[in-house]
């Protein structure tokens, strides 16, 4: 084989190669369909444009997906994040709505602390079920996924709480240095998690717990404690995402806030190359996955297709991505040869599907 072929094999074999191709293909398809797609303009000192919008709207998903990445890396899954978003958003909005001056920064800060606090407690509940009692993660978090919706509706008393608070609204639609504030929040959380997991041993420990919790425990890692911690972190991320979602519309809806976000987040994680079996994770991949999903959603909206139908496209994306990543599928496509020739055969599919 020539060096070129080897290089190509290395490139197409890279975990993030196909997600990037899909993202670029989506952007290109959008630009062809709507030439103004890439345009970014300055208005009142803020940047506006489709790309900025996509970034802003993907912020909550990025946050939830980051927490989910860590959970999945330990071999678990957290289905309760959507309910968690609804609960934290509802608590924050409820507290603000009870304040005499809804624009007071102090009151808003207290509401945020309350929201995050409650989410952390619920995260600890999840963590205790998984790490202490030893219930399967899917089921342990299913409890809060079902009951959490009820809790959120209990907090809002089945109503949609509307608030009129500028500081809180800023979390969702505010601007900083010409860019939406939510982008900075998501970036800050991303940086923090990257620093903590990749600059310390924590990331390695998480991966080792995901690889084999019992072996890690015998090697001296407190597996239980790590798992517990991860669910709390996931809940914290979900809480911040919940603030953004409710701040975007300045109201808390216990039923609709954060609905389906757990599935989108799992999807983002899987697209990003993190294996559902646990044992390895890629934060960069997750962010790419979240951006890809949000771009797909925005594309579907822009092309005047009903939002629900976007689920159809997501289904196709999930199945293709999972197939590409499944070792059994790769082995079937190219029984003899290593990664190189295998990928292109599968590769044509996402390119065809994406602009459809």
């Amino acid at each position, binding site marked *: 084989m020539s060096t070129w072929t080897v290089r190509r094999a290395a490139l197409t074999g890279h975990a993030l190669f196909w997600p990037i191709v899909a993202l670029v293909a989506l952007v290109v398809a959008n630009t062809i369909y709507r030439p103004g797609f890439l345009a970014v303009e300055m208005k009142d000192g803020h940047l506006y444009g489709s790309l900025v919008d996509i970034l802003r709207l993907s912020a909550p998903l990025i946050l939830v997906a980051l927490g989910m990445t860590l959970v999945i890396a330990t071999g678990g899954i957290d289905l309760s994040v959507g309910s968690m978003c609804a609960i934290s958003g509802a608590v924050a909005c409820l507290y603000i709505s009870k304040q005499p001056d809804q624009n007071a920064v102090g009151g808003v800060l207290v509401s945020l602390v309350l929201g995050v606090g409650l989410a952390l407690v619920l995260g600890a509940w999840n963590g205790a079920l998984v790490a202490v009692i030893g*219930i399967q993660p899917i089921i342990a978090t299913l409890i809060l996924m079902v009951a959490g919706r009820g809790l959120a*509706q209990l907090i809002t008393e089945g109503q949609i709480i509307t608030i009129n608070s500028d500081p809180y609204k800023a979390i969702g639609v505010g601007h900083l240095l010409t860019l939406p504030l939510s982008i900075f929040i998501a970036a800050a959380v991303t940086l923090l998690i990257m620093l903590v997991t990749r600059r310390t041993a924590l990331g390695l420990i998480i991966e080792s717990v995901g690889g084999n919790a019992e072996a890690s425990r015998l090697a001296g890692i407190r597996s239980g404690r790590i798992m517990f911690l991860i669910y709390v972190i996931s809940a914290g991320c979900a809480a911040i995402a919940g603030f953004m979602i409710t701040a975007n519309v300045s109201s808390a809806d216990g039923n609709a806030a954060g609905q389906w976000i757990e599935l989108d987040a799992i999807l983002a994680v899987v697209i990003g190359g993190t294996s559902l079996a646990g044992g390895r994770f890629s934060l960069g991949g997750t962010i790419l996955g979240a951006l890809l999903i949000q771009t797909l959603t925005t594309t579907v909206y822009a092309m005047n297709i009903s939002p629900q139908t976007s689920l159809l496209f997501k289904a196709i994306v999930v199945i293709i991505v*999972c197939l590409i990543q499944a070792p*059994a599928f790769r082995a079937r496509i190219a029984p003899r040869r290593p990664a190189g020739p295998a990928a292109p055969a599968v590769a044509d599919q996402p390119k065809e599907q994406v602009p459809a």
Partner: protein
Amino acid sequence: MTTTTPSQISGRPWWRIPQRHVPVLATGALLLVMYAVGVSQYRAFSNVQVIFNVFIDNGFMLVVAVGMTFVILTGGIDLSVGSVVAMTAMVCASLLQAGVPAPLVLVIALLIGPTLGFLMGAVIHFFEIQPFIVTLAGMFFARGMCTLISKSSIPITDPFWTDAAQQRIGDPKGNFVSISVLIAFAVVVVAAYVLAYTRLGRNTYAIGGNPQSALLMGLPVAKTRIAVYTISGLCAAIGGILLSFYTLSGAPLIAVGMELDVIAAVVIGGTVLTGGSGYVFGTVLGVLVLGVIQTLITFDGSLNSWWTKIVIGGLLFAFILLQRLIGIRKK
């Protein structure tokens, strides 16, 4: 919850109950306690029609839960059922609206679910992708198809459908059940027979117990695993038809989140989520528990619907804990 009635333990001392029966018995006891509470609190609750109504309102869910029992017994999970139910109802409604004769519609509707289930099962088995993610894709797909068929709900006016919906089968006192309930019962009986007395049923338990051993024993793991997802798809399709009898319409957003209720019902019914242990009868009890909770909350009037979710969550927790405590879970 620990109380058991004499009929259940049939004269044996309580410590002689086989461990695998404990969850089902606990569910049965819970159901009795809940019913007793209902009867003691609300006078109209003792009316037989209340029980029949629980069946009428939950007939479609019962069928879907039976299918889910098969999947969970093999240690898998099927998240697509709610969407498949909705898709089947949508397909029925739109085909009937287009003037397709009712028998043909029934056949088509009964084919869609199993086909999707078969495909998902094949992907799960041959490509070794987690059931969770494959059926998640199936769920997205079916839900997307619903909106693709129509964005708003389609009424059903076909005489066969309206007859099936309004037919009352009952005793002279005026208590009645709908045809859906009878269909649901038939499904339950067939499923219980298949699980207990056929090769497919034994294989299902064996795979749930330990897939590797099942494979080494020469059991048809591939066939069985694909079969359970096909069965679940078939049950979801039947559930969808029953739902279209019940609502006489197809709506794209109906049965959202139903898969979770169904999984909850199966778990409350004592089926172990890691597979290998559980009964269709337990699932029937699980569905009834959810139905009675709903009825109790409706009777109370002062409680809001979200309490249903909280109570279901609490029960889920209690039963999972019970499963854990009696230690019949695999490691």
